[in-house]
């Protein structure tokens, strides 16, 4: 299972704000345990989605040269429960950003209703051994493409967001090759092993790694 708690970006303005959506579905297994007979989207995972929306926004600001980690949630409030069928709209706005880190204000909406709000701090990690083990280039690059950041992204000057130059190197390092059209293909068999180990069937894993994520 990939730890991705947003489905796609619908707006991405470099250095300023980003909006992503998350569809809540009964096909998600965790909802059946949370709670049996009364499925609701866990607030902790909504917070994770808000942090992913903000974290990618903050990372893109430095062209992904900095390792961005969620460091602190200064405030988080939820106003009502999100249930299957809801589309959560996560908006993250950069309040402050320096070389040390960033502060992001994030909201979650269902339709026009404010569902949740959070203040999130991100820190930039230095490039030491610990930071390296925390970040796998493969996951990161894959996620960015999968979520369509570069399809909807706008740079701060209003132009189209372009892939950062370091992405090609990361892609090579991660063993990902570009598939015709869009998306990536995972070359090594280990990926399947990992997916298998985390509970998916191999057939599913093959389908998800050989099909381009977007057409």
């Amino acid at each position: 299972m990939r730890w991705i708690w947003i489905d796609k970006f619908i707006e991405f303005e470099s250095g300023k704000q980003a909006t992503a959506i998350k569809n809540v579905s009964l096909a998600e297994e965790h909802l059946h345990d949370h709670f049996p007979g009364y499925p609701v989207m866990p607030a902790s995972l909504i917070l994770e989605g808000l942090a992913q929306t903000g974290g990618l926004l903050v990372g893109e600001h430095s062209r992904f040269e900095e390792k961005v980690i969620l460091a602190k949630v200064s405030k988080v409030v939820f106003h009502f429960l999100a249930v299957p069928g809801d589309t959560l709209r996560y908006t993250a706005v950069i309040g402050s950003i320096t070389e040390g880190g960033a502060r992001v204000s994030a909201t979650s909406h269902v339709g026009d209703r404010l569902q949740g709000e959070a203040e999130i701090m991100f820190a930039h990690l230095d490039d030491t051994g610990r930071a390296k083990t925390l970040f796998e280039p493969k996951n990161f690059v894959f996620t960015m493409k999968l979520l369509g950041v570069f399809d909807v992204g706008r740079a701060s000057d209003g132009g189209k967001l372009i892939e950062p130059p370091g992405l090609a190197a990361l892609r090579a390092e991660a063993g990902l090759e570009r598939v015709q059209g869009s998306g990536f293909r995972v070359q090594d068999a280990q990926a399947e092993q990992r997916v298998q180990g985390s509970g998916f069937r191999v057939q599913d894993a093959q389908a998800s790694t050989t099909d381009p994520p977007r057409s």
Partner: protein
Amino acid sequence: MPSKQEIFEKIRTCLVEALGVDEDEVTPEATLVGDLGAESIDFLDIVFRLEKSFNIKVPRGELFPEDILTNSEYVRDGKVTPDGLKQLRERMPFADLDAFSANPNVKDFGNLLTVQDMVRYVESKVGVAA
């Protein structure tokens, strides 16, 4: 120009929000780390809040000189060298470094900065009404 009291009150609000402490815990003598429980990421949070609240810029290392404390030139055997202390005094005229200088263990430094030091720092940035 804000008064001393206004500066203190704004800083108190910043600290209450950033550290989740009660208003009455934020006294001028309270130390940020020891009494109010600030951790390293909190300093970044506090700096962002001060910048917004007072419309000032707080350059990295100015309020909390971590670069000096991690520089092997200024630290020997876990203690800040005389040169390092000189640097700290220049960098932090708003802080009382006398007690720290007597036994300058780096690990005790975090416990030095008080709310009052922060008030003096902001005063030096924005000026203060008589």
